């Protein structure tokens, strides 16, 4: 595999089609995401952005076409198998584990690393894990302790947002903190590819800035991590992304730098259906 070479193809979306009844969510989607790239996906509601992330992460299967990771076809794999290959994600609707504490929620993300498989060698079979957990065998305990340390490290990345609340249950968190928790749960896995589905939705301007800064910092510390982000707040897209694709009715209409893409008249038309001023468009969307 050529994953270690910068700018090689990490993820290939190859002529993918997906319909829901009469609605076309992916229509011959065909593009390549390079390793280490920060790709933003924008477009109006119903353009198929979330469906794209659902298909990459295995939640939804394409009806036609292929998705390949480093040359290996992944579009028939289960979500857990895809995750084990190094693709982590967040959800548009913030799927946290409501009754679990922040700490436990993040630790769930470490489970696949603990038992191995996918990217790493398999370490515990089902019965082996059962016996290790039951008798608290040293190897298993050491792995669990390492996972806890990793979770602590990730929680502290979010300043005092998560760490002081680590024993609070997820259902009691604010909307913004649930988003942070989801991102932390994905980051704790140290993924090769991170899929973010509207990470800044529901955040106020200062929270949005804070999140943008965290992602930017992540980018600096882990430049090899590929990030695919669906986001409505164009200001976030401009600040973070290196490449921006604009989707409408299941197809890519523009593939450019964020600045180039967001100025494109086809984009404005796709969003508003009529040709209005770019300024008005930008204003409406930047307010989120």
């Amino acid at each position: 595999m050529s994953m270690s070479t910068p700018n090689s193809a990490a993820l290939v979306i190859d002529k993918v089609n997906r319909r829901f009844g009469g609605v076309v969510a992916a229509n011959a989607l065909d593009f390549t995401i390079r390793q280490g790239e920060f790709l933003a996906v924008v477009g109006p509601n119903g353009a198929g952005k979330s469906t794209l992330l659902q298909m990459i992460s295995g939640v939804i299967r394409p009806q036609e076409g292929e998705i390949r990771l480093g040359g290996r076809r992944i579009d028939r794999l289960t979500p857990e198998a895809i995750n084990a290959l190094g693709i982590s994600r967040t959800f548009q609707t913030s799927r946290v584990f409501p009754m679990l504490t922040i700490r436990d929620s993040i630790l769930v993300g470490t489970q696949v690393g603990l038992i191995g498989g996918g990217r790493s060698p398999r370490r515990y079979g089902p019965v082996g894990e059962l016996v290790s957990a039951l008798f608290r065998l040293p190897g298993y305990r050491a792995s669990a302790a390492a996972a806890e340390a990793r979770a602590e490290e990730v929680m502290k990345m979010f300043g005092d947002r998560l760490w002081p609340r680590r024993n609070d249950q997820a259902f009691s968190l604010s909307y913004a903190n649930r988003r942070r928790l989801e991102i932390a749960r994905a980051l704790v896995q140290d993924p090769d590819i991170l899929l973010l589905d509207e990470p800044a939705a529901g955040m106020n301007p200062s929270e949005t800035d804070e999140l943008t800064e965290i992602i930017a910092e992540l980018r600096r510390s882990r430049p090899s991590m590929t990030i695919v982000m669906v986001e409505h707040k164009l200001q976030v897209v401009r600040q973070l992304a290196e490449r921006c694709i604009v989707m409408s009715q299941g197809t890519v209409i523009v593939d450019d730098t964020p600045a180039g893409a967001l100025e494109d008249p086809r984009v404005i038309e796709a969003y508003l259906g009529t040709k209005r001023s770019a300024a008005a468009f930008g204003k409406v969307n930047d307010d989120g």
Partner: protein
Amino acid sequence: MKRRMNWLGRAGLALVAAGLLQGLAAPAPALAQSQDSVTFGFFAPLTGRFGANGERFKEAVNLFVEQTNAAGGIGGKPLVVLTEDDRGEPMQATAIAQKFSENPAVVAAIGSFTSGNSIAAGEIFAAAGVPQVSPSSSHPDYTKISKYQFRIPNTQDTMSLKYVSALKDNAPHKRVAIIYFQDDWGIFVGNATKAALEKDGSEVPVFEAMLPDARDFRPLVTKLRQANVDSILLASHYGPSATFLQQLRQAGLEQTVVGPETLYNPELITLAGDAANGVITTTYFFPGDPTKVAFVDAYKAKYGRDPDLWAAYAYDAIAIATAGAKALADAGKPVTRDALRDAIADLPAYDGVTGVTKFVNGTPAKDLTILKIKDGAYTLLQ
């Protein structure tokens, strides 16, 4: 969020547990403790799916206690019966058995209805040396538990031969269908009658179980129609049997139906109506029998209807235990558990409402009466 349970909480839980145990350990009624009475423990399914049978038991037992005490009790001491409901569940039966066994006043146990519960409780009574008289358990294993177990009916194996002879004397029997109820009694009777019929040269082309709770017998009736049988041996309880008879006669099948004593129940005629006519059954007890008139009249006066076989079983069960106690009292001996066991085992042939009971290893060998339903009433056939 996760809080450790504080000491107060733990103490509270402990108190609740202690309170519950206190409730469990509450002493039996004072009367039962006194030596001025003779106390029996009676248990049966008074609620649940066998509730109807248990109720008949209870009515007969209460009637007998009333009559006995009105007539001066046992050697001047009143007869007292402690009643418990086992719901037909073995776990309840064993708990009740322990409760009776450790109550020193209880000298005999009467129960239960199902063989399963009688056996489960029987293991405990055997260990505690409490004589147990089951009104209705006919499972061969029951009296094998110990010398403390007694029963009012014959065992299922001897009974099954009698059903077969009732069938052969009264119905064509080249091809016989056997329908049996899926419980311990039904399976045993089904297999035993099948063996007996086949040994004597009859064919059994239909041999089917009736599940508890089953009420739709049309597929079975369709099968019977195809099988072209001469007669049907129906080893089932009266409730599902009534529904089966209705569906059988609706389908226009007119074969003679012969059944054991479970089909001897006035409710069968009420439920099945005309479909019950022609059914031949055996029984230990028949209220039309002039020799049983005292029991029938007393029962009818108290409860407003004729006693059925279950009432008769229970009446004899407690009567036999009482006869044993009376024999001890008459001889001037104290009524203890072991003495009572021996007294019951050594009773002379007891002529009760279910026929003459003389125990051999806890089981009697009685004769049966054969009945036929004519114009909506049981009539003596022989």
